[in-house]
């Protein structure tokens, strides 16, 4: 068994340690006896690789890098990514990547940058004088009810959802989407958009296992039983930080 992980723009959307999510997916897959095949898909790679992936990941970056990615998504890879998400390929899109999946990003000067519009959200810059949302963030998602998920957010843009019920999670501590409506991220088909760095997967193994389960189900059928793994250290890492917040 193998699982193809598509890592979108690893050399561009890579500023905030989000690479840890790829490392975590690889780690868990190997433990389960499934071979992780990591496919780096950046500007120079062909777009039609995207729908062939079993899990897709894309992280956050700086503005200039995002400009390059935006151009490539618009001219080339955006429609493949949209198709992949609609077809139910599980994916994780963090921070800048999450914003790209929305309808648009409105910059401080009013300039509008179009997103690929697969998530019914839009993001606005609050202007230069409004502080960024920076700090530890604790959320609870209906996908993993009863478990508090932990991350670190660092974003200027505020994201607003057309339907708050489509949020990935509710905020327990921190800002999440916009610091106003108590929501964090977006969930659609099998794709998660989120502002959680940290990175999100190593300290929240249930999210990693969710993505893997969905990928295995799609590829090998729901009858495949995944090996249950020991996540003692992951939970300890999370609890240790949560208890000190």
């Amino acid at each position, binding site marked *: 068994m193998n699982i193809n992980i598509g890592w979108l723009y690893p050399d561009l959307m*890579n*500023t905030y340690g989000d690479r*840890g999510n790829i*490392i975590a997916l690889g780690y868990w897959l190997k433990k389960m006896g499934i071979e992780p095949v990591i496919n780096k898909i950046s500007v120079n790679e062909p777009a039609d690789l995207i729908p062939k992936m079993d899990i897709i990941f894309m992280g956050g970056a700086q503005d200039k*890098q995002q400009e390059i990615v935006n151009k490539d998504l618009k001219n080339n890879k955006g429609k493949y990514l949209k198709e992949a998400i609609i077809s139910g390929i599980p994916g994780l899109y963090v921070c800048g990547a999450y914003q790209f999946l929305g309808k648009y990003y409105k910059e401080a000067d009013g300039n509008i940058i179009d997103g690929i519009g697969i998530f019914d959200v839009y993001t606005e810059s609050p202007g230069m004088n409004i502080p960024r949302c920076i700090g530890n963030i604790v959320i609870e998602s209906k996908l993993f009810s009863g478990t508090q998920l932990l991350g670190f957010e660092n974003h200027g843009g505020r994201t607003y959802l057309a339907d708050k019920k489509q949020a990935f999670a509710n905020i327990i501590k921190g800002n999440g989407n916009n610091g106003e409506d108590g929501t964090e991220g977006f969930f659609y088909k099998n794709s998660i958009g989120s502002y959680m760095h940290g990175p999100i997967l*190593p300290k929240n193994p249930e999210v990693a296992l969710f993505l893997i389960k969905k990928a295995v189900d799609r590829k090998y059928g729901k009858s495949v039983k995944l090996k249950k793994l020991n996540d003692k*250290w992951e939970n300890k*890492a999370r609890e240790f*930080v949560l208890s000190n917040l």
Partner: protein
Amino acid sequence: MKNILIILVCKIIGWISRIFNLGSGSTWPGHIALSLNKKFIRQVINGNSHLKIIIIAGTNGKTTSTALLRHLLEKSGHRVFTNSEGANLLNGVASSIIKNSNYVSKLNFDYVIFESDELNLPILLKEISPDKILILNLFRDQLDRYGEVNSIALKWLESLKTIDSRTEVFINGDDPQLYHIGTMLSGKVKYFGIEKKLMKLKYVPNDVDSIYCPVCLSLLKYDQLSYAHLGDFYCGNCQFKRGEVNDFSNIKIHYPMSGLYNVYNTNAILLLLKSLNIVIPAKAGIQNKWLSEFTPSFGRQEEIIYKKRRVFILLSKNPAGFNQSIQTVYEMVKNKKANFLIILNNRIPDGLDVSWIWDVNFKPILDVANNIYVAGDRVYDMNLRLRYEGSKNNIDTFVDLPKAVDAIVKKTKKGEKFYILPTYSAMLEVRKILLGRKLL
């Protein structure tokens, strides 16, 4: 209030705060001086026109480079003062002026070297017009505090465009973004780098911030790479490429510290000295003697003897710096094995976010580690990081730092060396344990 009076008052405040150990004696006097007179720094500096001013900025290597430059200037017979390490803000600069000034606001020194962090360079340049500015490097560092690399680069560029045309700027010419800043300046700019035969990296690593062309946004290509995004770069799409750099490949230099990053720091300082017309006697012998007499600053490849073990501390506070520390210890330990203690804190001086450890490549440490110990405020994050890197070693995990130190000492034979890689506040903490007192 007259600056003479301010200096007197603030010197007294400095003494009192030192005697009674009231907070940090290194920034209080400056804070008060600036609140009494906003133009304090500018006015006192302008009243000391004999003083040559050097500013050293960058993400990594500021403290080491400042100390090295000071050492070499003093060896060649000059009087030098600096702002104390960590006192990078204007109040730290003002404090160093108060401390080193006499009662008629005269600074009886030939040189002052001000160390400046990423955010403070533009602020400092508004106050003073230096003779030389050295820009060492620019890497991601404490993103929750300093912000992203591109926005810092933009602020630096805007600020450097306003400096006096007589100010000479020294820039790392192996860094594409910094080199580009250099080409945008109208004044005097010189570039330092390292010789190509030292550039041995085979692939572009993941701790890079500036691998896209600053002119046309295409992916840059590298003939050779030294570390992170530093190397012999060119753009395949436009004319942008690395220019001439001073790499001192024609002389044999005794580099006083290990690691590629210290080749950069040393070359930068040698280039700066050259431009100051401080002729280090042409015979390389004297220069190398002076270099070999240099003692690293605390926590930067510092060796401490503790319970008859040799403890080697390498401050490791961001991905590029940590990767360089790892590379350096790997080269030192290679073919043998050693014990390691990694301490991850996330206090204000470390940055609250620890996501960055996932941009560090820990594999070389795993390859040469006997026992690995982890400690610090975010000890379990470090435990996970090493396990996910594929560690087959047992990761000994300690919430309590003194216990971690005891454990590694116990597992290291007398006379043998072990290695500590701490973040900034962790470095201060572990030194306190090793030295039995708080010593800067």
